[in-house]
């Protein structure tokens, strides 16, 4: 069991954003979480890494309870969170961003090159000089250096050109297979078909509740019904 969430309720200040969420994720799985805005997708990730939200319930990572651990401890256990803005440090160069991830001044680029050749030209550029899409991809590439077992992605393909989207999705599959990272992956409802290309399982959030869970094949058959949940 990679990740286990038991009856999670999460709150932003006075507003409850998640209601009684239960989730089980096996090693090596890719789970897509879809839903309209304000459904609580991001809140789900933030509750896992324990930032900005107050919550009740239990969260276990590899059978270790991490519900109330400080974020950096959770990260050290092997969870890497990528926020919707990519999470590269502005003002720092890409290589510096990678050094931070490696916790060392020396980072071997060869492997990164293999996953994403263009990285070479970006190394010495400041993170904030990259386009939104580039930033997100580089942040995903950074995970190769971080070496997590579980990857938490917040809308990684949002605002990307279609070509980039496909590239990113291939990249995620590659990370999953070759770096055996399990991936909990958030996208807006519109991306459902893209998500289904590689996800083992999808899960629909609406108004803070899980309204649908299903294996991808099953989901593909029921896609029209699912779209109702997504208000589209």
């Amino acid at each position, binding site marked *: 069991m990679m990740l286990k969430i038991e009856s999670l309720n999460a709150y932003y200040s006075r507003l409850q954003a998640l209601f009684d969420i239960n989730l089980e994720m096996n090693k090596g799985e890719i789970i897509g979480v879809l839903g309209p805005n304000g459904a609580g997708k991001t809140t789900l990730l933030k509750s896992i890494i324990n930032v900005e939200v107050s919550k009740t319930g239990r969260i276990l990572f590899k059978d270790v309870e991490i519900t109330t651990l400080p974020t*950096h401890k959770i990260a050290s256990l092997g969870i890497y*969170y990528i926020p919707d803005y990519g*999470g*590269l*440090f*502005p003002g720092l160069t890409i290589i510096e961003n990678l050094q*931070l991830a490696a916790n060392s001044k020396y980072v071997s680029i060869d492997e990164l090159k293999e996953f994403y050749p263009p990285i070479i030209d970006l190394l010495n550029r400041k993170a904030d000089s990259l386009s939104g899409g580039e930033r997100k991809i580089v942040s995903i590439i950074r995970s190769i250096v971080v070496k997590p077992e579980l990857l938490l992605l917040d809308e990684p393909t949002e605002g990307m050109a279609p070509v980039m989207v496909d590239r990113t999705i291939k990249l995620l599959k590659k990370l999953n297979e070759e770096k055996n990272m399990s991936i909990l992956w958030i996208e807006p409802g519109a991306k459902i078909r893209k998500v289904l290309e590689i996800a083992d399982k999808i899960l629909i959030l609406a108004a803070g509740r899980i309204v649908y869970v299903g294996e991808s094949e099953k989901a593909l058959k029921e896609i029209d019904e699912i779209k109702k949940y997504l208000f589209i």
Partner: protein
Amino acid sequence: MNLEAFLTQTLVGLYTGSFYWLLTLGLTLIFGVTRIVNFAHASFFVLGSYLMYTFYIYTNNFILSLSAATITTGLIGVIFEITLIRRVYKIEEMYQLLLTLGIALTLNESQKLIWGTSPKYINMPELISSGVAIGYTNISYYSIAVISIGLILFIIIHIVINKTLWGLKIRAVWRDNIMAQALKINPYLIYTTVFFIGIALAGFGGALMIILHPVGPGVGDHLIIYAFIIVVIASLGNITGAYITSLLIGVISSLATWLAPEIDIVIIYLITIIILLLRPGGLFGER
């Protein structure tokens, strides 16, 4: 107007400025990383002076007392960080400022109780007598040393911040605390070390200063104002700015005392106000 006097005053200004720098460097580092404006910083500076005084009385060894004073001050700073300041990182900055003000009052007053109200100084003629003569006046090697130390520190800090991994972590926390944690960096460790360094530097400055200037009650109250003026003009959190502005204010004030003694401090405040009217973000403001 005569050149010699001008040069002398400028040099005097430079070493006064270097003391300001030792004060504002820590203030800047701490603000940059923790977002806390440490009202008590000058009190730690003065604490450094007093400790130097006491250690010197017992050991009679300059270097030993200097290092002891520096480290002790830093450690006391850490104690305050862990026990008190750590509790207010996440709340309104108003309260952070108020807490450090409370700490400042506490420190200043306990210093009065421990070391009394009469000014204390260390008399080391051998250190300050020898020097280079500029015309009639004599600039001691000691004050020149102070200036050089300031410069060296400036360079070292830059290397540490921009070239080392640890400096990289500091910048990371500085920029995006949450992402830093997502990359396994423990921010509290960074905070505490930065507090130690920042406050140790203040203590170091204080310890150096007591050789040249007697230290007594009120010195802290006065210094914190200068420190604040400098960091605000330099734009809070900007290290290079803090260094340049410290020297600038040092020189300006010493020239002012020479040319217009009757209105010297008035000039400093006037300049501050004008600068902040023209450049609300300070001279070296990024955004």
